[in-house]
């Protein structure tokens, strides 16, 4: 009996010792002391932004407006039917992105700074300066713009979408959609719902670039008036502003039969007429973006000659602030 017990103990001892030895040499870790489950949490203080969440949901609803209304068959109000190049707006990207191609290469140890770093494995790769959310504008802080446009509403096409994407004003609603035009917007469910269910202080409408191929300028003007009247009816207490159609770059203008400076001016005359007929303000934002007396986008202002880069979107906002009824400037100190 004793012999059997000693034999069993011997077996078990050998089993345990050998198992531990083999486990050790094969690299398996039973207890990993260096288990780094805590990842590099880098809580951004902006996560705790105290901005009104109601406005987010409103903006959220507007961020991806889907107009399910069926486009009419009138050849006069569809740019794609005038010359077959209706997709022109977003189809060409000019090679002007070099303005951001800063080749400032820094050491890995400076990764916490505002420049993109490189590792030893990709030293041959050029890096470019990384913009930050906190220094988006040299003149004003993000909070300044949040405050200036608090309770306001922007309505428009992809250019207004770009305005939100690059400036990210969180306190205003952006009722925008790629390809939106003055006809579609009248029946756009989300736009109408937001205008019905909210109360805005200022409403800025920027439409027209998608209509540049329309044959009938009268139709464009009439649709625009109809929409403004609808906005006024739904928002009787708001200041409504119609913004000029932002011009395009010379390169874009020279290469397009539709999206050119001549058409922008022709349609802008009708935007002025529409604003006048509907008795609302007209803001010639071209002055703010391009400079006094200039009616063409600077070459470095856009990647595709149509959509504004961040700096120019801030110029647009600054112009609006300076030209609108400035009820908010006196009570806001940056």
């Amino acid at each position, binding site marked *: 009996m004793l012999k059997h017990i000693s034999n069993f103990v*011997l077996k078990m001892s050998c089993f345990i010792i050998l198992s531990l030895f083999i486990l050790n040499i094969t690299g398996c*870790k039973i207890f990993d002391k260096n288990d780094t489950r805590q990842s590099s949490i880098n809580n951004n203080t902006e996560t705790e932004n105290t901005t009104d969440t109601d406005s987010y949901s409103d903006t959220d609803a507007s961020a991806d407006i889907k107009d399910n209304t069926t486009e009419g068959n009138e050849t006069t109000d569809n740019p794609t039917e005038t010359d077959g190049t209706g997709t022109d707006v977003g189809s060409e990207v000019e090679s002007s992105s070099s303005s951001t191609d800063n080749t400032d290469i820094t050491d890995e140890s400076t990764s916490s700074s505002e420049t993109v*770093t490189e590792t030893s494995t*990709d030293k041959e*790769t050029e890096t470019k300066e990384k913009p930050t*959310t906190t220094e988006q504008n040299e003149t004003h802080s993000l909070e300044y713009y949040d405050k200036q446009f608090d309770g306001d509403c922007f309505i428009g096409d992809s250019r207004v979408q*770009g305005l939100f994407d690059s400036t*990210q004003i969180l306190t205003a609603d952006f009722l925008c959609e790629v*390809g939106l035009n003055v006809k579609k917007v009248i029946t756009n469910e989300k736009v109408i719902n937001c205008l019905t269910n909210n109360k805005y202080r200022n409403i800025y409408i920027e439409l027209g670039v998608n209509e540049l191929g329309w044959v009938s300028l009268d139709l464009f003007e009439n649709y625009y008036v109809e929409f403004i009247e609808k906005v006024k009816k739904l928002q009787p207490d708001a200041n409504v502003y119609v913004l000029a159609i932002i011009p395009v770059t010379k390169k874009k203008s020279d290469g397009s039969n539709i999206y050119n400076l001549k058409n922008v001016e022709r349609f802008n005359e009708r935007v002025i007429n529409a604003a006048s007929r509907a008795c609302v303000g007209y803001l010639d934002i071209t002055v703010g973006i391009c400079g006094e007396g200039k009616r063409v986008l600077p070459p470095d202002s856009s990647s595709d000659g*149509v959509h504004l880069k961040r700096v120019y979107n801030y110029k647009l906002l600054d112009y609006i602030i300076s030209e609108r009824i400035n009820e908010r400037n006196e009570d806001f100190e940056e």
Partner: protein
Amino acid sequence: MKNFRHILSNILSVFVLCILTALTATVATACGKSKNKDYSIDVSELAGKLYGQIEFEDELNPCRDEAFFIKYGIENKDDIVNQSTYLSTNATTEEISVVECIDETVAETVKAAFEKRVAQQKSTFASYAPAEVARLDNAVITKLGKYVILCITADTDKANEIIKQYK
């Protein structure tokens, strides 16, 4: 002699048993590692590398946290530990987003949100700028543990190469 043979037999059987046990443990551990690797990614660093090392046609701008939730329709802000996102001016559909979620389940939700975003963009740009559809078709959406990466670029090889460094 008989006793010696008996002891030798016992030792051999124990040795074989030990090897089998160790092999099983090794295989099990290896499988576990491949499925549940504890990734630790600095989202800002990875997004910065994608931004800095890929040639984008459009200007990309960093996205504030609140705008990120709006853009991708993520309702529960507590689900996201950190994010680093860059949006285009709408001249193109180029985009970068690197997100750290609280767990892998949420990461699956964020991945689905990215897929939805790409599908919506494809639908929007199909008639507006058809050239963008190809870019969207090749959008890189990768989940690494509780991290999710979206990169919409024409240079998907470079994007994958950068992401591979974190796998």
